[in-house]
């Protein structure tokens, strides 16, 4: 078997392959489900119902998608410039720490002012977190995959230290958690009595902003050029290192917003289980979206739906909700394969 590059890529292939990839992952998971003697159709139906079967379910899915949109955008922005940011998790926690530092009464400001301030602080925290590995990369050639990945563990341990010390809530009966943010710092709920909050709208706006930067601005052009061919970009006069630094600020800032949105919109305080791996799942989301900012919204909702739906399904069908991880993982693998197949043609012999 061999691969040959395709000379042209008809639209049918560009759309058909990714759709086929999602279908393939659903079929694969249905086969897995059959191993536990449950009808795959009822399981798929229960997942669907759990994710979008009611207003409550659907809003839960969107709530879960919110941090994934932020981290997905963060990863997409960085990966487009071939800055391999595996550290969205660390940047998310950096954003959350900033939110708690400034949002628990330290700045007694009215809500319309405090929320933008907290957003800026969270973006600064996330941006700083990614700037260090990026500086090491551009200055000393240190591989950012390693540094950003390892910083995830450093960040979580650092947060753990803060929660046992400086930021510990004295009223929490010894639990390692921060104080609650003040009411002025909370993101308003979008629907009365539901968990979906303003963070979702901010995430959508962030996606539109990223799309605008990518398509219309000189910076977006520079980021793409650096990503596709840094040598040619540099030869043409694009300052590669400075573009990478700006990319790091944007990417880290977006991941920092994920932390702010979770703390100020959902949890109210900072705990060590703030993120069940949103930073890593952001990589999956970005790859599923083929690094397109608008695709990130769809991919984040898809991934969130699978997780939320699988939780609901496991409660009623007794199939472990780990099936969600399998489904997301398989869909990623099929998507990556599908993307390759849009560029190459398979030849047998």
């Amino acid at each position, binding site marked *: 078997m*061999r691969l*040959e590059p*395709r*000379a*042209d890529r008809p639209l049918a292939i560009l759309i058909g392959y990714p759709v086929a990839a999602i279908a393939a992952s659903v079929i694969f998971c249905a086969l897995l489900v059959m191993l536990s003697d449950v009808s795959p159709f009822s399981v798929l139906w229960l997942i669907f119902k759990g994710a979008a079967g009611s207003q409550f379910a659907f809003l839960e899915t969107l709530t879960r998608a919110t941090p994934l949109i932020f981290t997905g955008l963060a990863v997409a922005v960085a990966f487009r410039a071939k800055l391999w940011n595996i550290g969205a998790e660390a940047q998310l926690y950096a954003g959350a720490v900033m939110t708690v530092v400034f949002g628990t009464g330290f700045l007694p400001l009215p809500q319309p002012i405090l929320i933008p301030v907290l957003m800026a602080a969270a973006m600064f925290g996330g941006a700083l977190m990614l700037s260090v590995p990026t500086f090491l990369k551009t200055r000393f050639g240190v591989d950012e995959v390693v540094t950003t990945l390892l910083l995830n563990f450093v960040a979580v341990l650092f947060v753990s230290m803060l929660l046992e010390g400086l930021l510990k809530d004295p009223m929490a009966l010894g639990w390692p958690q921060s104080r609650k943010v003040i009411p002025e710092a909370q993101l308003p709920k979008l629907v009365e009595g539901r968990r979906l909050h303003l963070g979702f709208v901010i995430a959508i706006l962030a996606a539109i902003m990223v799309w605008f930067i990518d398509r*219309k*601005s*000189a*910076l977006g*052009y520079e980021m*793409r*050029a650096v990503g*596709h*061919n840094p*040598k*040619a*970009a*540099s*030869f*043409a*006069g*694009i*300052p590669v290192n400075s573009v990478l630094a700006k990319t790091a600020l944007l990417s880290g800032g977006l991941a920092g917003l994920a932390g702010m949105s979770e703390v100020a919109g959902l949890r109210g305080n900072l705990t060590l289980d703030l993120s069940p791996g949103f930073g890593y799942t952001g990589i999956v989301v970005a790859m599923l979206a083929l690094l397109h900012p608008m695709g990130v919204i769809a991919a984040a909702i898809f991934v969130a739906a699978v997780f939320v739906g699988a939780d609901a399904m496991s409660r009623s069908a007794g199939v472990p909700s780990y099936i969600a991880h399998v489904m997301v993982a398989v869909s990623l693998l099929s998507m990556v394969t599908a993307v390759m197949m849009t560029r190459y043609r398979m030849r047998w*012999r």
Partner: protein
Amino acid sequence: MTGQEAGEREIVLKLSGITKRFGPLTANDAISLSLGRGEIVGLLGENGAGKTTLMNILFGHYVAEAGEIEIEGKPLPPGSPAAAIAAGIGMVHQHFTLADNLTVLDNIVLGTESFWSLSSDRARARKRIRELGQTFGLEVDPDATVATLSVGERQRVAILKALYREAKILILDEPTAVLTPQESVSLFNTLKRFVAKGLSIIFISHKLNEILAACQRVAVLRAGQLVAERDTAGVTRAELAQLMVGRNIPQAKAEAQQPGGIVLRLEHVSVRKGSRHLDDISLELRAGEILGIAGVSGNGQSLLADVVGGVVAPSQGTMAVDGAELRDLSPRVMVAKGVARIPEDRHAEGLIGDMTVTENLISESYRASRFGGRGLIDWTKARVFAKKIIADYAVKCPSPEAPVRLLSGGNMQKLILGRVMANTPRVVLANQPTRGLDVGAIGYVHEQLLAARKRSAAILLISEDLDELLSLADRISVIHRGQLSESMARADVTIQRLGLMMAGQGFDTGSTADAA
């Protein structure tokens, strides 16, 4: 038809009806070719004529849609380089596939050793390499590290590697591209010794002189078809050129012209980057003249181009455009100073293959106010600009939105010419501007350079093609191990003299910089 000579010889290799398509392109169209024992057959054709595809099919890298290969009467299974090697085919690539950090011995035995090889095997291998070297006049120290060898020596290692694997049929892909004229002659003599010992050789080239000097028979490929087979004894250069291109080529001719004032001046420029270095280079370039830089590849041409292009800042010495010394060198500064830069490698440096024609055309000027300014890009204006360049420079592309990687090499070069020439540059830096182009595109590039000369641009032409330098340049300097010779007027230059200088004659050999 097959020359008579092949009829008398025992046929060692027979290709019949080889056809290979890539999408709509037919790279090889029913090509039949045979090679006799002890024969050197030249495979002549322009870039893109299908020479490399044919050899890749022979070596098993590609599988042909139709056709058969027979070696000494036995069919060769398609698609298996291992089978091709076992059948006695040895390939020497233009860019030698050697590991620099290993010794000659290691490079040669690499891939032939079994997992449990013993040191006695190595002793035997060393002995065999020595013997092969003596038999074929390819003596190289088996224990030298490849990185310390000259290009000519590396080529010997690459050939030895094939011989060590008991190759009976050698394929040499553009073997002279990295050699001085004198080294080429010595290679041709070596090849004659090979065939005297019963080897057979396919010699791939697009240079007519070499084919005539080295081969007994020549097969001419054009656009995927075998258009002629001739004995070199009875064929002329002009006839071959005609066959290769399919039409007559008008040669671009430089008209005599008085140069103007000095536009670009380099004074005592030295720089070192890894193993590449320039030592105390000074040059002056006047308006309306072409200064040619000759040299064997890898003697500092690319570093000189990087300095003039603003990619590498010299560690010592100064560079001035129009008398103003340049500080804080960067590509942007050079573009702003009106230096048009045509890079050596279109794919790696010149263009971004996955971006569109429009995006590539504005890569040096996207921040200009005519494309929006204030950090934004007005793509409507960019597209209008792109359409104008596409029309003015006759670029063949599906649309301004097509990714550049779909374009042919010639059209890529036109795109780069359009990008850099559109704002009437003061200086043109052309580094190997015609490498890998077909004859039509070469002519176009030459025309453009001469047109810029006529508009009194100062042109620095770095080229490994001596014919190109001799037909275009007003003055020629030779670069050797990072040093640049005084320039000579074209009238005073001969190929022989250039060849000797390219090999180092007349240069300060006290330089120790190349020892590593």
